[in-house]
């Protein structure tokens, strides 16, 4: 009894009003609920990506490199193959005596920011064009790898059984053959047919790009799709066990449609991430091949061939090595960091 009294006093001392106990309307209740907006896969992923400072910095870097290597060479005062007599082997920001005379005469001469090479070619533009070559190889090769690898992997993973067995043995063999061998031999095999093809109307772009670069794309596409194929196959094997695939099949969907609509779309995150990480790896290989002298041919520069050429003059002109080395490093690093960021943002398995 005493207890209830206390409670009564207690409750009256709380300064409550009868109005407080009026039922709340639905609107009032609604206003309190902070609705978390339902986010789609893409929206959620991009939000996470934007919050990742390192990935965003890498993205900015990638865009900057693209501008530098694709846009800047278009209106750079020097051309990559342009040889200036008398301006051979200049150090950074140096002018040749001829150029000094022209400056004396009141002419404006654009400085050789990184100096010139032994043929009197401006080194800065060569590094920029070299980056363009590396980026092109990286992007195009990765696109080819994505195409071949995902289709091959999807087919093997989807059909499974004997098809999968045979297809994966082929992958194993390609994995085992030393890639240097295939690259060197294939480049030679392809050289002649490509040259002939470039004379066929409609294929003149091969000459513009250089038969070597085209054969490099083909070699990459033939060799390096196996990693992508393995990843896609693994994903498809897991995905195809999902109920919605059974449901689609029960509804009479064709195999092609199931692969396209249900399986590929569901591993699109993985595809994006793997492709992004494939780009630096392709650039890596390209620079390695060019370093060996197997990549793009002179006068077209590539970061690898520039680094290789700089080796001889390492004692006197170390910056000739550092410039392409730095570009390779920055390109590979920024793509890797971007790829890592994309993986954290879009690969649901990594969600934590």
């Amino acid at each position, binding site marked *: 009894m005493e207890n209830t009294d206390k*409670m009564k006093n207690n409750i009256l001392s709380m300064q409550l009003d009868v109005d407080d*106990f009026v039922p*709340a309307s639905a609107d009032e209740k609604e206003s309190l609920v902070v609705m978390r907006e339902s986010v789609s896969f893409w929206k959620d992923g991009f939000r996470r990506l934007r919050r990742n400072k390192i990935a965003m910095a890498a993205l900015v870097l990638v865009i900057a490199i693209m501008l530098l290597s694709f846009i800047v060479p278009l209106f750079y005062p020097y051309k990559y193959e342009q040889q200036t007599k008398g301006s051979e082997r200049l150090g950074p920001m140096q002018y040749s005596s001829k150029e000094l005379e022209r400056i004396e005469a009141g002419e404006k001469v654009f400085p050789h920011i990184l100096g010139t090479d032994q043929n009197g070619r401006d080194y800065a533009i060569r590094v920029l064009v070299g980056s363009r070559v590396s980026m092109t190889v990286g992007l195009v090769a990765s696109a080819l790898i994505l195409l071949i690898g995902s289709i091959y992997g999807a087919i093997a993973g989807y059909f499974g059984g004997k098809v999968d067995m045979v297809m994966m043995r082929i992958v194993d063999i390609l994995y085992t053959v030393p890639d240097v061998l295939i690259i060197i031999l294939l480049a030679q095999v392809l050289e002649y047919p490509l040259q002939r093809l470039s004379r066929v109307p409609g294929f003149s772009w091969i000459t513009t790009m250089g038969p070597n670069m085209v054969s490099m794309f083909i070699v990459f596409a033939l060799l390096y799709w196996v990693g992508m194929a393995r990843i896609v196959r693994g994903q498809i094997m897991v995905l195809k066990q999902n109920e919605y695939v059974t449901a689609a099949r029960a509804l009479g969907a064709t195999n092609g449609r199931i692969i396209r609509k249900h399986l590929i779309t569901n591993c699109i995150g993985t595809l994006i991430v793997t492709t992004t990480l494939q780009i630096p790896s392709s650039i890596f290989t390209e620079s390695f091949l060019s370093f060996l002298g197997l990549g793009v041919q002179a006068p077209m520069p590539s970061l690898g061939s520039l680094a290789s050429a700089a080796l001889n003059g390492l004692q006197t002109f170390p910056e000739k090595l550092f410039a392409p080395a730095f570009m390779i490093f920055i390109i590979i690093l920024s793509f890797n960091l971007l790829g890592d960021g994309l993986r954290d943002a879009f690969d649901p398995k990594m969600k934590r």
Partner: protein
Amino acid sequence: MSDYLVDIQHEKLSFFTPAGEVRALNDVTIRMKEGEVLGIVGESGSGKSVTAYSIMGLTAENGKLMGGTVEFNGHRIDQMSEQEIRKIRGKEVSIIFQDPMTSLNPVYTIGNQIEEVLKLHTGKRGAEAHARAVELLRLVGINEPEKRVKQYPHELSGGMRQRVMIAIALACEPKLLIADEPTTALDVTIQAQILELMQELKGKLGMGIILITHDLGVVASMCDHIAVMYAGEIVEYGETDDIFYNPQHEYTKGLLRSIPKFSERDYTKLVPIEGQPVDMLNPPVGCAFAPRCDSCMKICLTKKPDRTDFEGVHYSRCWLQKKAAFMAARGAESGK
């Protein structure tokens, strides 16, 4: 030092995530005597697991005690270092988890994993530890324990693995066993067996049990007391009969309405609780359950209700009971 095995007073605990501070526990008080069975009921994210885990200092790295005390078996857990708590874990208090499929290390034998805890806390080694492991497996009702002890987790079924988890938990005869949804991942028939086993072992060993579940049906047969949690608070607490036959909080009532009752001849419709659980990043100022409550009043949206005590240990936090008291008090006032 209190007379209670578990004595949690006004515990406040937050997790600090990139998105902000998540107030997982907001003034939780729990007392439990030795040998008692306490059920903690609530939906995911209500703080039921966090409450129990804090007894063994098992909160995640980003979790921080923001206030209150946690005492277990005379130890002030909230003031102990990780090294000190480690000596208690597995010995005085142990835990079994929801998913027995993933709770055992796949690369070690069952025996190895039971013996590990024995070596740590009892000093038993070699043949002695092995013998004890076999004995424990027999205790939890595993056939051919001599053979099983040499097997790997993937060679056992889910129900058997949960039995192994119980064997590990009980290896050092703890005073308290925390069972975190021990049957959720299991088949219905196995669920009953595991609950039966726990009850039987409790009879033999006399430890206290905290049974965490979202399923009121599971706690009914086992528990002495039940705490119903919602959004990091205990909204209703009482003896099992109080909760089942005299529920006071609207959330408890909702939970009871959502359990199927096979005894009833007429088909009472199962009523789900509408709405979404609370966003713990932005907890509401008023009663957390208000937006989902059918009897929500204006005050529920702006003020948190206090405890209203009923007979015995039974209490709840709901403005409806306050309303009744308020109206009665005003009536008495005006009558004077």
